[in-house]
């Protein structure tokens, strides 16, 4: 099948989720004996950046360059990606399930009368019938979804698929093809972009250090922040901590907060209520530090320390500093 992958760019660069989607698309194309084509939509994306896509298994990048694509409109991006899909006669379209993927993929599914698997975690287990696994029940389950429409859309969960090592694949005949579909006026005016600066962004972080009620008060967050800084990690917190105003709401991870899937999640003084676990259970490795050896977190953690956070965490930070200076 011909696979079209939306290679999302952030200010002209392709980040990890886009590279995961490209690798996924390339492997899907290979599995079905088809070709994979990337689609890049933006305003003045540097050609040398687009050329890098050759490393991720595509033979061609369709490049839609237009000033209207400098800011985001779900309607507009859906329209041009839909045109690209028609042009390439794509039977499968792959997104990363980022904010953009979440905005575009459903609209495109409705436009193309295509079945959409949002939050896919693996390549299709079968092509005929077309079956893809996705997360459900907020990390408490998985479901195998069968798609029966002619065109299929997959929105891949970030951090769920590997990325080709750069240079591992190199299509010698890679080419960039400029594509100029009809461009209606944007329906969305962006008045301000507020960037979280200076800190590691929680949803993109490889490592997250999180604190709960066991920290006893907002004045004690220094040990969490120092550990996070040492690891180059983002900080997070449990719901009660955000509700009591100890930490800002945007740090709250859990079922009604933010869902994250970092490589390493370190939970300090968090008991591990089922709603909290729902937001973090797809982390690759979980460390729990808690005074209570019966805390539910130890049932889902890979590594645990039963002890007082105020003693253990500073020691752990020191050990990591030593490790970092030795490596």
């Amino acid at each position, binding site marked *: 099948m011909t696979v079209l992958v939306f290679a999302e760019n952030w200010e002209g660069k392709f980040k990890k989720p886009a590279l995961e989607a490209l690798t996924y698309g390339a492997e899907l194309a290979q599995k079905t004996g088809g070709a994979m084509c990337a689609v890049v939509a933006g305003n003045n994306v540097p050609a040398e950046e687009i050329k890098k896509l050759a490393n991720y298994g595509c033979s061609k990048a369709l490049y839609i360059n237009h000033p209207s694509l400098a800011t985001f409109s779900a309607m507009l991006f859906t329209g041009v990606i839909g045109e690209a899909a028609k042009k390439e006669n794509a039977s499968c379209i792959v997104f990363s399930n980022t904010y953009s993927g979440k905005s575009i993929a459903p609209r495109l599914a409705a436009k193309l009368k295509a*079945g959409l698997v949002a939050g896919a975690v693996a390549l299709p287990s079968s092509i005929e019938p077309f079956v893809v696994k996705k997360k459900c*029940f907020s990390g408490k389950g998985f479901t195998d979804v069968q798609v029966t429409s002619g065109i299929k859309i997959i929105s891949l969960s970030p951090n769920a698929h590997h990325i080709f090592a750069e240079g591992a694949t190199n299509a010698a005949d890679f080419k960039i093809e400029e594509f100029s579909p009809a461009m209606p006026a944007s329906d969305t005016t962006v008045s301000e972009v507020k960037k979280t600066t200076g800190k590691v962004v929680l949803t993109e972080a490889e490592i997250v250090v999180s604190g709960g009620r066991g920290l006893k008060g907002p004045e004690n967050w220094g040990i969490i922040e120092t550990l996070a800084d040492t690891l180059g990690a983002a900080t997070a917190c449990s719901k009660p901590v955000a509700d009591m105003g100890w930490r800002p709401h945007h740090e709250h991870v859990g079922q009604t907060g933010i869902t994250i899937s970092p490589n390493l999640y370190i939970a300090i003084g968090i008991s591990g209520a089922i709603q909290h676990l729902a937001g973090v259970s797809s982390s690759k490795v979980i460390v729990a530090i808690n005074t209570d050896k019966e805390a539910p977190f130890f049932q889902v953690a890979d590594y645990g320390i039963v002890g007082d956070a105020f003693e253990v965490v500073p020691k752990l930070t020191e050990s990591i500093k030593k490790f970092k200076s030795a490596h």
Partner: protein
Amino acid sequence: MKFLVCISHVPDTTTRITFTADGKALNTAGIQFIINPYDEMALTRALEIKEAQGGTVTVINVGTATTEPTLRKALAIGADDAVRINADPVDALFVAAEIAHYAQNEKFDAILTGRESIDYNSGQVMGMIAELLGIPSVAVATKLDINDGKANLEREIDGGKELVTVSIPFAASAQKDFAEPRIPNMRGIMSARTKPLKVIEPASAFKPVLSVSYQNPPAKTACKMIDPAHPEELVNLLHNEAKVI
């Protein structure tokens, strides 16, 4: 403002999820169902704007008769009337097409959903309705205000927030911070019993997606306990065994 708020009927957040022995369905025995928490945030914000500026709030659900208590709860919180499309909500595009079909003739100014339902976590229905109706959509929004006939929203983006303006009618999905959910009071609960709840039969049968089986996540291997006096052992394991640092 004439609001339509889409309500999903989902297992309570504290539910331990299990599946039937054949793995083909959710084990619903003993499960309490609630309004999807993000939908409740959307509903609350719609009510706040209605109270300040006037208008109506209609709630809609695609579901079988078992979802009616959830719709009654939405009426108790303050919605004016409810609509139930009488069908099993097996596929997002099917659900969206049914809601869009109903909304087409009703001229709503705003169609709101939660950013995802906590059962299928797909977040598809809002964008699909918007595309089917040809109106702007803003996904994962944290704020909504209506001023001078326009909708001003704040939405999450990778690494920050963005303030956007769209014309009316529009659709949006609510993320945390959209509104603080309300607990219905006795008057609300009493009046909910007599508010209109209309049942409509589905208009289409196009269902391109179907969940064929379910599993719980694989059981974790036992947690390795580390001596609190020797956290360097944890660093060693994270580097050499887990390979995450």
